[in-house]
């Protein structure tokens, strides 16, 4: 069977699976069995966090550029698309609905919104990516953080998108959208990492000077990884906004960027499955801690942060390190994927401007 056909079948199977799961996610459910809204919410947020973590992993885990401004790109995507859906979507949906039917029009409009969110976020990524040419390590980190905060405060001052009172957004997102885009993000990042571009990115992470000496256009690749990653974060923002149906700039404070960084470091930097695992752990852990008995429940977040420290102290390289979780694990094969080799014994050297 040609590889293309194989892949098409795989894609169809995944979409079909997601459609079935999507049915369970609604309140009515399928065969009289549905996922309760509380769990549904956790699953949705987990999916969105997977997109964020996997996309940040491209910049920080694979390219080695330490960015703590991911929440900013998410905000750009969320607000730009919400502007579209709030002010124009209804009219467009009506006129388009006459041509292709309501459901398709609804889906097409949301697809357009996601595209707009991704493009605007990518442009923001370009603007932030350019200073990354001059800055290294911690200086880059603080500049990305600064950009994210500036973006947030600028949005706070735009009355058209609600300003400080928040912005009510129509609900478009359902599990199918989140699922498809989460899978798409993972597939895209996987393919990038395993392509010649991925090799270039990893070489920049390992040693930028050496990469440049080998003829890699480091500038181009760094900006490219920034732009791609921001576009994906923007998509996650679109999905997030149209799921919660309410946008407040408080959702995009720098603590949110930290949370995404925590996901990828916790899972293991430079590991795709690690990022996914980290996203799931960070989404589910605080919710699980709600089950703490009686008096302890007010210490939920204390236990959460203590657990975070304990995980980092006991597994400094992250849960998976730089390894990938997969079938090879079950076969107990210890062969490492090429290009994800850790530096020395101490884990991947990252954001290291001054090697000793």
């Amino acid at each position, binding site marked *: 069977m040609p590889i293309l056909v194989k892949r098409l079948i795989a894609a169809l199977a995944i979409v079909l699976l997601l459609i079935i799961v999507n049915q369970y996610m609604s309140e009515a459910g399928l065969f009289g069995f549905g996922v309760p809204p509380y769990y549904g919410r956790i699953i949705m947020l987990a999916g969105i966090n997977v997109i964020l973590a996997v996309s940040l992993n491209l910049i920080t885990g694979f390219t080695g550029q330490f960015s703590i401004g991911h929440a900013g790109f998410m905000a750009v995507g969320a607000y730009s698309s919400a502007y579209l859906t709030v002010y124009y979507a209804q009219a467009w949906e009506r006129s388009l609905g006459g041509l292709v039917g309501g459901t398709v029009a609804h889906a097409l409009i949301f697809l357009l919104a996601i595209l707009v969110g991704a493009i605007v976020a990518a442009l923001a990524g370009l603007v932030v990516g350019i200073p990354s040419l*001059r800055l290294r390590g911690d200086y880059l980190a603080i500049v990305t953080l600064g950009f994210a905060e500036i973006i947030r405060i600028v949005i706070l001052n735009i009355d058209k998108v609600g300003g400080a009172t928040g912005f009510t957004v129509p609900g478009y997102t359902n599990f199918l959208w989140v699922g498809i885009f989460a899978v798409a993000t993972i597939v895209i990042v996987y393919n990038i990492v395993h392509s010649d571009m991925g090799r270039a990115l990893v070489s920049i992470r390992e040693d930028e000077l050496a990469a440049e000496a080998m003829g890699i256009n480091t500038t181009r690749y760094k900006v490219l990884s920034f732009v791609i990653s921001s576009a994906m974060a923007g998509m996650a923002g679109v999905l997030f906004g149209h799921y919660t149906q309410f946008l407040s700039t408080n959702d995009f404070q720098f603590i949110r960027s930290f949370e995404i960084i925590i996901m990828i470091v916790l899972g293991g930097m430079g590991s795709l499955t690690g990022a996914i695992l980290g996203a799931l752990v960070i989404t589910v852990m605080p919710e699980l801690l709600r089950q703490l008995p009686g008096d302890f429940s007010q210490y939920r977040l204390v236990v959460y942060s203590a657990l975070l420290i304990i995980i*980092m102290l006991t597994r400094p390289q992250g849960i998976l390190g730089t390894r990938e979780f997969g079938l090879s694990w079950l076969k107990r094969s210890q062969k490492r994927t090429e290009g994800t080799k850790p530096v020395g014994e*101490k884990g991947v050297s990252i954001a290291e401007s001054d090697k000793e």
Partner: protein
Amino acid sequence: MDTFVQQLINGLTIGAIYALIALGYTMVYGILRLINFAHGDIYMVGAFVGYFLAFQLGFTGPSLMGLVVVLIGSMVIAALVGMAIERFAYRPIRKYARMTTLITAIGVSLLIENLFVARLGAAPRAFPQLLQEQSYTLFGNAAISKSQILIFAVSVFLMLLLQWIIFKTRVGTAMRAVSFNLNSAKLMGINTDVIISVTFALGSALAAAGGVLTAQYNPQIDPLMGIITGLKAFVAAVLGGIGNIPGAVLGGLLIGLAETFVVGYGQNVGVPTTFRDAVAFAILILVLLFRPTGLLGSSVQEKV
């Protein structure tokens, strides 16, 4: 002109506080290359320790003795807290990738914040006024309050003291040696663990002083007060050139002034006062675009 002088005084007051906190960031960074995100929370811990000390010791009204005792007491306790954080959270993973230490620092920061919120509630508390507040009119209509004079006096004193410790004492020499090269310092017989502890103690004490002083100027303290102040102090440290001690002071003062001027004059040029929190970052980005290692930072030549 009067308002200009007034803004200048107010800006320098806030800037002095940022500078005190920024010193801790820059010292720890200089030695460990670690962004100690928990440092802003030490500032908050300092303010709260001062609050409880004042009530425990019965200093609820204006009293100079009370002020001195509360200030020194909270500096000492915060120094111990800083040393404990270093000992139990950072030292075990010092040899691992810096990203790991960074996440641990964020974890410690969250832990302190959440612990304080869980124990004390998030509502702000009124810090007892240990200083009889009084305003002195300078020339024109510009005025300086007693608490502002206190902030200037104490922060200048502490900065000079720090300068003396770093350049005139054996510990300070060792600190400079460690920040120059940790491994070589170790080979020269310096007990680097002790020096790192001392650095955390000094930085935390300065942050705690900042916390108590702020509480005299603006007597509202809450468990989350360290987040945004800490972040701006960190920006100040980077602006001045992280790892550079005069740079931290310069950066702190610049950011304090910039913030006050945005609030005071921004509206005249169409910048809303809500941009107060953004201006620190805007300046930082502009400066780093032209001087990638900050105002006073030395550029490190990359070697093959």
